[in-house]
């Protein structure tokens, strides 16, 4: 086996891992947006999920407990957003921004005592034979459980949205909340549940970063991944399968940038670090320029305030 091919295996595996937090957060946000709510607080929910997951894992010694805590913390933040936007009818854009600003501060506060503490890595899958396969073995059969969970969430979300009655109702609420309300569906309750799900998924994505990907806690550990996840939902034109594609693309860009740095190619590392953000902008432009496609696929009530009496 040539040296290039030997390098390909670890790169592929790293790409899948780098895509995982984006996949969690973007799938969660996709369900939220399908219900007609725009939550710009993904970055804040990821950070709080990351720090709470890390803190609980350090205290209990169990990374499973950490992931559960991360999801719960993300959902808790999302509940705050839900109360403000759905019950108190606050502007969704402003509240989402507030959630991110609050999450940045809160996570830094909680994380005070946890900076620089090492934590045991989450064990990876090992299937004798399969994991040892060249090139694809490590990528497909040597990851840890969360990577597989994120992958499994893609068909699960698709199935829920397009093959179940509840999914149909959720989409109806997102397309036309007044009509759904007139049919007797509980618009606010359905949206609240969607928002909670989105928060839990963001929290999981954050916990994956601090417990598994890095693994450690540092202030602002998500470094814009929550925002990239928001862009991914648009890139995917609100389709779960395309979220996967987008997440892999960004995982690829992230890893490629690290490897170029590692190969000693003479480009300053700070300039290479811009790549994921620039790629997000470019991808967003390519998708958004097709106005008709966005209009066809975006939930029609996205971001609009609903009050049953109005």
């Amino acid at each position, binding site marked *: 086996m040539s040296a290039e091919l030997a390098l390909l295996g670890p790169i592929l595996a790293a790409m899948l891992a780098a895509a995982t937090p984006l996949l969690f957060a973007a799938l969660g946000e996709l369900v939220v947006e399908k219900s007609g709510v725009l939550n710009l607080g993904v970055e804040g929910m990821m950070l709080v999920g990351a720090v709470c997951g890390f803190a609980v894992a350090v205290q209990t010694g169990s990374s499973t407990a950490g992931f559960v805590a991360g999801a719960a913390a993300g959902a808790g933040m999302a509940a*705050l957003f839900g109360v403000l936007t759905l019950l108190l009818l606050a502007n969704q854009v402003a509240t989402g921004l507030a959630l991110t600003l609050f999450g940045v501060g809160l996570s830094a506060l909680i994380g005070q005592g946890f900076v620089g503490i090492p934590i045991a890595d989450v064990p990876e899958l090992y299937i004798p034979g399969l994991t040892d396969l060249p090139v694809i073995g490590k990528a497909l059969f040597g990851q840890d459980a969360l990577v597989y969970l994120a992958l499994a969430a893609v068909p699960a979300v698709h199935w829920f949205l397009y093959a179940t009655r509840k999914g149909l109702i959720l989409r109806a609420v997102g397309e036309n909340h007044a009509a759904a309300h007139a049919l007797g569906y509980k618009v606010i309750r359905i949206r609240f549940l969607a928002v909670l799900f989105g928060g839990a998924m963001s929290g999981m994505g954050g916990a994956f970063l601090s417990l598994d990907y890095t693994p450690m806690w540092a202030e602002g550990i998500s470094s814009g991944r929550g925002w990239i996840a928001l862009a991914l939902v648009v890139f995917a034109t609100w389709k779960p399968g395309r979220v996967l594609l987008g997440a892999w693309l960004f995982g690829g860009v992230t890893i490629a940038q690290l490897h170029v740095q590692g190969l000693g190619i003479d480009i300053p590392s700070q300039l290479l670090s811009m790549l994921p953000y620039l790629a997000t902008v470019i991808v967003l432009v390519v998708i958004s320029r097709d106005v008709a496609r966005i209009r066809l696929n975006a939930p029609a009530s996205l971001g609009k305030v609903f009050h049953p009496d109005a």
Partner: protein
Amino acid sequence: MTLLRLEARGEASRAMVYATPLLAVALTLASGFLLFWAMGFDPVKALHAFFIAPLMSLRGLGELAVKATPLVLCAIGLAIGFRANVWNIGAEGQLTLGAITGGGLALAFYGEGGWWLLPLMIVAGMAGGALWAAIPAFLRVRFNASEILTSLMLNYVALHLLNYLMHGPYRDPDGFAFPESRLFEADAVLPLLVAGTRVHLGSLFALLAVAAGWFLMARTFIGFQIKVIGLTPTAAGYAGFNQKKIIWMTLLLSGALAGLAGLGEVAGPIGQMNPTISPGYGYTAIIVAFLGRLHPVGILLAGFLMALSFIGGEAAQIALGLPKAITGVFQGMLLFFLLATDVLIRYRLRFGAKRAVVGRAAA
């Protein structure tokens, strides 16, 4: 059956427009009291150290103005955009670019400056910020790309660009590899306004921006167009208002003001280029804009309040060993409470189920 419900008011309550920011501040202080108590600090002492002690000296008041300056400059521009539903959240990056371009001139003409250098830096700073904001404007107008996401992504790009420059071209040649530039020379530094403080010419610019922002919104046709587009985009379309022009204008304007804020930092209190120009002024300015009700005068007051949260955080860190991150928590809480209480502008709270009220009226 709900015990508490919202009943639409006939029209927005003027009184509540002014009352809810005060209510939000009161609720934030109450929550801060509980938070300090839960963290094991004496809440009264902590709140005093945070919000009152910093204001007890001329130096402290000066610092308040120094910190309020970039916040107000950024928020005035952001608010004008928000009024037109143009969500520029890239003020942090635009501020950074203003520092890079304006501060870059100070380094380029090091040792050969003159009276002309400072005005040139100011123009360059504003141009740098406007240029950075022109990117989301172009992408929105030409390609329909959300300015929220593009302007935010550019914040990270700007930060990495600054980092690159500080480790490369901008680094002090005699600085032992520290990522800091030379100290700016006297003709590249904004003059001080009040002896014994660090209040500089930038604060005057901020006041001018408040006045100009008020004039633009209240007395010009462009301000009227901005308001109509923000309230009812369809009406603006029928009236033939050019929405693309307004997107360009609001983004360029807010970019230029943020750039000026960035230049004011490096040519003011910092006095050199370094990798940490802003503790998040561009993000906090979003809160300032909302807290100030997107109105220039409100923004001025809100700017001072948020400036207090920055210096209060520093003071409490030194006096009581409170973690610095408290500042961000306070800022976030304040915005939450404001958004939550804003419901009272258009709705009243009613207790008891709707049916019961109707029944009583009939009886």
